[in-house]
């Protein structure tokens, strides 16, 4: 199946995937599986220069552009955070910079995981999203 072309269509797929689970345990088991399956990040990008500080968990994020599209790889030391990274990459990675900048992440509300993106969680994810958007903004300006 081809990867949909827009952030919105990608997010819609995720919402449909999560609709298969009727309780939080199922949703989190799926999220944890996504975290385990997150492709390994290039070790040279898992360094201080790419680290996003969270009080609770650490996140590493690397961005690359190719023909106007921004590709991200990322990692975390916490598995649930990795699962959420997998969702964010699935929605945003490989899109045009402008679309990433303006993408809305309302799908996280629909699947009941929005709380993880709150800055007060201090798990690095809120900073990761702002860093992704900042990368996209920088690339869009080029």
């Amino acid at each position, binding site marked *: 199946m081809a990867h949909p072309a827009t952030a919105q269509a990608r997010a819609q797929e995720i919402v449909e995937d999560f609709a298969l689970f009727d309780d*939080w*345990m199922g949703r*989190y*088991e799926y999220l*944890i599986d996504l975290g385990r399956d997150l492709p390994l990040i290039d070790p040279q990008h898992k360094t201080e220069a790419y680290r996003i500080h969270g*009080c*609770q*968990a*650490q996140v590493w994020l690397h961005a690359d552009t190719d023909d106007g599209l921004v590709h991200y790889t990322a990692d975390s*030391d*916490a*598995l*649930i*955070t990795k699962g959420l990274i997998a969702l964010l990459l699935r929605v945003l990675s490989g899109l045009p910079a402008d679309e990433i900048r303006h993408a809305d992440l309302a799908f996280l509300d629909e699947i009941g995981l929005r709380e*993880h993106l709150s800055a007060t969680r201090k*798990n690095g994810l809120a900073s990761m999203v702002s860093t992704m958007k900042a990368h996209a903004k920088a690339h869009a300006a080029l």
Partner: protein
Amino acid sequence: MPSSLTRTPILDVDAIRAQFPALHRTVHEGTPLVYLDNAATSQKPQVVLDRLAHYYAQENSNVHRGVHTMSQEATDAYEEAREVIREHLNAASTREVIFTRGTTEGINLVARSFAQPRLRPGDEILITAMEHHANIVPWQLVAEATGARLQVIPVDDRGVLDVDAFERLLTPRVKMLAVVHISNALGTVNPVRHLITQAQGLGIPVLVDGAQSVPHGPVDVQALGADFFCFSAHKALGPTGFGVLYGREALLETMPPWQGGGDMIERVTFERTTYNELPHRFEAGTPHIAGAVATATALQYLQEIGPAAVAAQEQDLLTYATGQLEEIEGVRLVGTAPDKASVLSFVLDGVHPYDVGVLLDHMGVAVRTGHHCTQPLMQRFGLPGTVRASFAFYNTREEADRLAASVRRAASMLT
């Protein structure tokens, strides 16, 4: 059969729990709350909530200023609170009981007003490896300002303070010892009486961080012999934003004021200001009056239950919960000192504490995860953090069972 069904209760916990509204709420769509984050802050009994409301509804006035009835009543209640707190700590005089915003402010006050003027380049401030950031950073600030240095007493793999190392570090260069009474991250109860005797034998003043000890048992500052002792009300059933610094009067008398403002002065002219007496000299500005009176109510409530009974109940919970957690494959306790308060820090092999905390929260179990504001201690143990369950006297063995069941479930999801 869980042994929760077969013991003689120390306290009537059901009756006590009925007095704590927050313990009866639910989280995540109807899951009953198991509150095990008491080392971060305790829940409040109804009498404390009522006292706060009564103050604002009936007594609200500024203290030490008005001649009108309400101001007199507020001042009386405020200074009666000081007497209740004095009695709880067994301080010699209310002149030794200074109201602060919390433990952190108490330590900063002593660092700035007592230690800084006495420190010279090359002097040493001795702390332990298990200090909270609040008992590290204020000393680093005065060390930077004076050229003094921090020295750290190490802990062993159980989280026990290395007393031999302490005695080696106790040289004439040391001008201040600042030590945590009970570790918030490990639960270790430090031998503060011994440390104080040794230090004072060499004329070294001692500050004790009592943030975790006042809520969990009897504290007698005179028997302890500390020069300074501070705690926060909110960990001991009281409101947030209020705390106490106890200081020996002879030392407080030598200290310049830390903050200037109203209430701390005797007479002000543009040329010269003279300062108020103890303890008011260290209490600039309108204080947290409601905080003071409600803290007195909280400590009276603790006295009625009995600090010794509180300690016994919490020891029972600690022993029971330790046994329950030790049975779970992959659980490793962090902090296994023989003398320990009701703090259970642990890690699951190969699992990040944050993941455990998120799943426990969904099961209604409130714990703390992370470094517990003790980053150097976590580095000592080579951990990014731990999961910490901390029990209060209003917790039950059934709640310890729910903790263990939830940890088992989290482990099965994450490993």
